């Protein structure tokens, strides 16, 4: 039982560490703030949730107590990290951070113009 639990814990922790490194590679390599936000807020969230789940399995199977704070931590990271990514990306768009040259379409351009004209009224 404990040997099988060992393999599951190792799998979840290694998957989480790999996803976290992938998120960092995206944050370093991608060309503009929106794509970086895409990498950071998805891959880092899933990586941390995976590591927390591995830690939960460790404390449940090997130490023998059910730790509800880790479950709460998983739920909290799952809820708040995409919301934080959305908020900072919206703030970047409204403060006029440029998209990369390779982007072909800006569907929000008219909406931005409308809010700007509404502010001047």
């Amino acid at each position: 039982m404990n040997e099988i639990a060992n393999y599951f814990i190792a799998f979840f922790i290694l998957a989480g560490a790999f996803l976290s490194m992938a998120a960092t590679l995206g944050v370093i390599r991608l060309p503009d703030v929106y794509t970086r936000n895409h990498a950071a807020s998805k891959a880092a969230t899933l990586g941390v949730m995976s590591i927390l789940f591995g830690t939960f399995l460790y404390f449940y199977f090997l130490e023998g107590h059910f730790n509800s704070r880790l479950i709460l931590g998983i739920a909290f990271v799952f809820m708040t990290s995409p919301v934080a990514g959305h908020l900072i990306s919206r703030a970047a768009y409204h403060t006029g951070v440029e998209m990369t040259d390779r982007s072909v379409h800006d569907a929000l351009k008219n909406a931005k113009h409308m809010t700007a004209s509404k502010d001047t009224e």
Partner: protein
Amino acid sequence: MLDTVIHIALFCLALSMIGLIYRVIKGPSIPDRVIALDAIGINLIAIIALISIVLKTNAFLEVILLLGILAFIGTVAFSKYLEKGVIFERERDR
């Protein structure tokens, strides 16, 4: 086996935090830096979980929740400041 795996994972997380610090220093715009700081906070949660496995204690697990809440509040405050110029707005009719 598990000990080796946890140390490898800690090394990977340390590498990824170095990369994020590079983005905090270099990032051309302010939202880049805020995104990288938010990801550093999220990575610190994972590091604390792994360190509590290494030390075989469950005394640090409150810190996970605390860091999650603090990273979220910090990012929300920064994005509100960047967008509107204030964090706490005043009441309008008085």
